[in-house]
């Protein structure tokens, strides 16, 4: 259970800054820190159990059909990452408290940060492949929000978009890869997958799977050639860069390679591709770090380079190499986060990060200078720092590896070059900022930051030194657990500073010597490079994206020409093709069932329908006439339902017909009365042919179905309606019971449509004609006396009828839908007969809540069955008797139907009454509070 808390607490923690942001920054920062602190504490409390060799797992079923479980594990690797994520996260929070400017929305920033933290913890602890992927995507999204936090800046927006595009695309590849992997292993559980390594490597789909998974890992961990998003992500606030782009997110790809190591690493392919990509990244990053002049860009490229180093180690894959990789993950996180934070401090206190503008800061910021020097020393791999240890291990492993066969010497050679470059850029970073005299004054007068802002850097640098001095004491246990988690068996190792004079030490010495020389001759190098134009990755990327979307738009425009009509034509043509294809596969159109005999009334009804339909289409330019013709069709459709034994449908259609016609008439009042003649004759003929062909297809299909014996599942509903649903009207029982969930969805849509219409009518500016299409002014007799008196008399009767229809609905034709529509019609009649003002004075309540209450009642009725341990929307019924009334039945379905009734009444009136109000002074207007543009925050009242 504790595991579940560790994994899910940070997710809950997202709410904390949102809730406390109004209470001042100090309180908000403190409160935000509590949740990760608890999670960190809980993680540490698992340490004894882990050391005792227990396998900590927790699993809750989520979607077992998809192999998705809410399953978490805590092993050495997760522990290591959790400590990094939560520990450094806490330091970052402290740092961010001072870093953000006064007026910046720190609550939002903290919420994004914690969301990111939660998703990283999720990745680290996931015990299920799909769950891991979910958290993986969540990191992409939350990092997008964080990189683009200063959304008013163009570079932040572009950087965020680029990061999301690259890591998001990688995430999709990863999903495909993980699905394949799970399929190959036969399970998505981590333990099963990790145990079936041999089976996976032998599978024919292994290369494809590996490529996809590595795409995910490489994009996330900024490996060449997907590295370019990382430097552009530096547009983020520095706490984000320190956290995401040094310590955590970019390590997610590395983590994935380490986590899946037993399952996917045991192949030739892996040990060629991964070290090669890693080496290229290592050199590429280091080379560019040497020439960048922006502090954060230098650090970003150096991060790319170090990620490449770790990738090489994981690619080599020997037990000691894995150990070195894990060790370097920790070391890099500590010194790089410290360096990023110092860079942020320098930026904060001097107003620039540009190397050319900086210099001589040793005098004004002595402590920061010392801290940065120590951290850079760790990065360069100076002895007695933690970076030295893992770098020596790296050199050792590159010397020992046989992965490239006869070319294996290439890897240590490349590693040595990487070492030289890393010394050179580390020296340059420190010397140019702190020790070299400044050429010009920085924008702000530099001074030391507040002590608490420096505290995180101090802690991290102290860790670098302490681990470097006493590696055996501080790092052994943790690394032992982590390597054991990756390799599956304990590894016997001993961390020491001094291994005697050996080849790796010689490599280190060469690296230092040549690194210093390189920095000394830096100006010559720059001059040498000048002729080579540098490629701006962002420009290339942006151009690619622009071209892509332009091409996409063009190809779409070529099809539909941005015209709805052409778009519809394509759609219908596609439907026609599918229909014809389907019909062509039939041997014979008519089935075994013979035609039932027709009578005169039927022929008359069909003729009226056909006449109405054709007339509607033919008169469409005269809109009112077309509408009247449409109403003929609607009326005869209702009669058709009545003729073919569907009383419920007939009643519904009849009442819907009334409201539809009123609605369309009202709408027509605000629209042009005539349609201009626009389509060319050719187009008209084409449309007619298309529509006619589709009509033929539909008619043939309909005929084919009706003349065949159908295998219906209705006998089930017939048999179970009374015993299972307690109602004799099967249609109604299906609606409120068997398929109640559909109905619930439907009334929700209805209520939503009503709300959407209410919103659309807000502040609608309309042209209100004073005369009809013929130029005749409207009748002065607005409220005819006969209609007025009839509507008054009808209202109570109609309400009574709707109550009757509602109550009998379960056993006789009727029900909530029909009753709701009848009530709505009666009320609308009142509006029409008496006018909005009159009705408004007597019916002064908004209909939105009615619809919402209706949906709520239906939902609660459904949820109620949970209280009794039944599935959602199980209905109960019983027979009761009251003296004087007799025996009657009560069913929970009736309550559900009441919800339907209210939703229908509410939504229908919301639509029609609000539309009617548009003509009057009661037109809906939005309150100034909920206007679209965010209102400026009101200044606090002076006390």
């Amino acid at each position, binding site marked *: 259970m504790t595991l579940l808390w560790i994994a899910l607490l940070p997710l809950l923690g997202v709410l904390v800054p949102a809730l406390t942001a109004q209470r001042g920054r100090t309180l908000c920062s403190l409160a935000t820190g509590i949740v990760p602190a608890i999670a960190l504490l809980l993680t540490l409390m698992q340490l004894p159990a882990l050391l005792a060799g227990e396998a900590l797992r927790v699993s809750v079923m989520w979607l077992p059909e998809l192999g998705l479980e809410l399953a978490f594990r805590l092993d050495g690797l997760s522990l290591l990452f959790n400590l990094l994520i939560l520990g450094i996260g806490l330091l970052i929070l402290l740092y961010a408290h001072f870093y953000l400017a006064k007026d910046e929305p720190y609550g939002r920033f903290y919420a994004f940060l914690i969301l990111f933290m939660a998703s990283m913890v999720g990745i680290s602890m996931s015990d299920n492949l799909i769950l891991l992927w979910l958290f993986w995507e969540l990191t992409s999204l939350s990092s997008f929000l964080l990189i683009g936090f200063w959304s008013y800046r163009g570079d932040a927006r572009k950087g965020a978009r680029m990061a999301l595009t690259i890591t998001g695309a990688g995430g999709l590849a990863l999903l495909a890869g993980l699905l394949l992997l799970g399929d190959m292993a036969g399970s998505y559980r981590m333990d099963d997958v990790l145990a079936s390594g041999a089976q996976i490597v032998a599978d024919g789909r292994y290369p494809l799977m590996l490529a996809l998974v590595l795409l995910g890992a490489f994009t996330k961990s900024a490996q060449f050639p997907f590295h370019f998003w990382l430097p552009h992500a530096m547009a983020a606030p520095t706490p984000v860069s320190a956290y995401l782009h040094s310590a955590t997110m970019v390590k997610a790809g590395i983590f994935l390679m380490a986590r899946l190591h037993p399952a996917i690493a045991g192949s030739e392919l892996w040990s060629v591709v991964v070290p090669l990509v890693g080496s290229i990244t290592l050199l590429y990053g280091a080379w560019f770090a040497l020439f960048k002049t922006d502090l954060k860009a230098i650090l970003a490229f150096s991060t790319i380079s170090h990620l490449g180093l770790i990738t090489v180690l994981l690619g080599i894959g020997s037990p000691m190499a894995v150990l070195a990789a894990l060790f370097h993950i920790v070391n890099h996180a500590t010194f790089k986060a410290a360096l990023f934070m110092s860079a942020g401090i320098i930026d904060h206190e001097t107003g620039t990060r540009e190397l050319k503008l900086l210099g001589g800061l040793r005098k004004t910021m002595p402590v920061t200078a010392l801290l940065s020097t120590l951290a850079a020393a760790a990065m360069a791999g100076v002895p007695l720092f933690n970076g030295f240890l893992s770098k020596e291990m790296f050199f050792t492993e590159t010397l020992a590896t046989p992965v490239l066969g006869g070319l294996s010497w290439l890897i240590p050679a490349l590693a040595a070059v990487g070492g030289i470059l890393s010394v050179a850029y580390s020296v340059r970073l420190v010397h140019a900022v702190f020790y070299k005299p400044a050429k010009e004054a920085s924008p702000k007068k530099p001074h030391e930051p507040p002590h608490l802002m420096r505290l995180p850097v101090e802690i991290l640098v102290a860790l670098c030194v302490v681990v470097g001095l006493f590696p055996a004491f501080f790092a052994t246990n943790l690394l032992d657990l982590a390597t054991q988690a990756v390799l599956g068996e304990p590894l016997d190792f001993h961390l020491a500073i001094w291994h005697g004079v050996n080849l790796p030490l010689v490599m280190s010495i060469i690296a230092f010597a040549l690194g210093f020389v390189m920095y000394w001759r830096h100006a010559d190098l720059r001059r040498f490079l000048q002729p080579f134009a540098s490629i701006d990755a962002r420009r290339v990327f942006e151009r690619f994206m622009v071209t892509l979307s332009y091409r996409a738009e063009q190809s779409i425009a070529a099809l539909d020409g*941005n015209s709805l*009509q052409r778009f519809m034509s394509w759609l*219908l043509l596609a439907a026609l093709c599918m229909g014809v294809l389907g019909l062509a596969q039939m041997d014979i159109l008519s089935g075994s069932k013979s*035609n039932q005999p*027709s009578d005169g009334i039927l022929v008359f009804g*069909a003729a009226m329908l*056909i006449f109405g*339909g*054709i007339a509607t289409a033919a008169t469409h330019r005269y*809109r009112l006439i*077309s509408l009247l013709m*449409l109403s003929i069709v609607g009326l005869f*459709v209702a009669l*058709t*339902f009545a003729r073919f*034994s*569907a*009383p*419920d449908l007939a009643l*519904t259609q009849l009442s*819907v017909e009334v*409201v*539809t016609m009123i609605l*369309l008439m009202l*709408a027509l009042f*605000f*629209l*042009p009365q005539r*349609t201009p003649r*626009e*389509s060319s004759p050719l187009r008209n003929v084409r*449309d007619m042919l298309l*529509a006619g062909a*589709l*009509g033929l297809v*539909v*008619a043939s299909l*309909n*005929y084919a*179905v*009706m003349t065949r014996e*159908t295998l*219906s*599942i209705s006998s089930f*509903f*017939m048999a179970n*309606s009374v015993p299972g649903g307690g109602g004799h*009207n099967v*249609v109604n029982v299906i*609606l409120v019971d068997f398929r109640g969930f559909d109905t619930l969805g*439907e009334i929700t849509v209805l209520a939503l449509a*009503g709300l959407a*219409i209410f919103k*659309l009518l807000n502040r609608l500016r*309309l042209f209100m004609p004073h005369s009809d299409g013929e130029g005749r002014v409207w009748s002065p007799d607005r409220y005819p006396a006969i209609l007025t008196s009839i509507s008054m008399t009808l209202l109570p009767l109609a309400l009574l009828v709707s109550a009757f229809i509602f109550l009998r609905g379960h*056993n*006789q*034709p009727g029900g909530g*839908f029909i009753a709701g529509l009848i009530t709505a019609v009666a009320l609308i009649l009142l509006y029409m007969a008496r006018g909005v003002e009159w009705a408004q004075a007597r019916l002064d309540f908004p209909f939105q809540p009615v619809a919402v209450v209706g949906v709520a009642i239906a939902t609660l009725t459904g949820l109620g069955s949970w209280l009794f341990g039944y599935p959602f929307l199980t209905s109960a019924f019983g027979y009761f008797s009251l003296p004087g009334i007799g025996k009657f039945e009560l069913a929970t379905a009736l309550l559900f139907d009441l919800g339907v009734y209210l939703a229908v009444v509410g939504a229908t009136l919301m*639509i029609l009454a609000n539309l009617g109000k548009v003509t009057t002074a009661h037109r809906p207007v939005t309150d100034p509070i909920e206007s679209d543009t965010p209102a400026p925050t009101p200044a606090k009242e002076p006390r």
Partner: protein
Amino acid sequence: METLYAITTGVLTACGLYLTLRGRTFPVVVGLTLTSYAVNLFLFSMGGLTTDGATIVHGDGNYADPLPQALVLTAIVIGFAMTAFVVILAMRARSEAGNDHVDGKKEDRE
């Protein structure tokens, strides 16, 4: 009877679809409504055409298929909601774009 029914459905579909291909909003809305009538009739007929049948369980034999009826009943109501939404959208589009062309074209050739 079935032939007649099928022809009717086909004609209504054709007329409705022809209208949805027009260039002004109101005929398109009318066309959608007409199409939805046709679709409802089509769906309704999936259970076969029953004369003098019942959907009320009483014990005697001649039953109409209740399932398509239930589906069509919800379809009618949803259809109304959608028609209402589209027609109000058309009004809004006219008020924003100044004309009632489906693409909201600037130049109004009336």
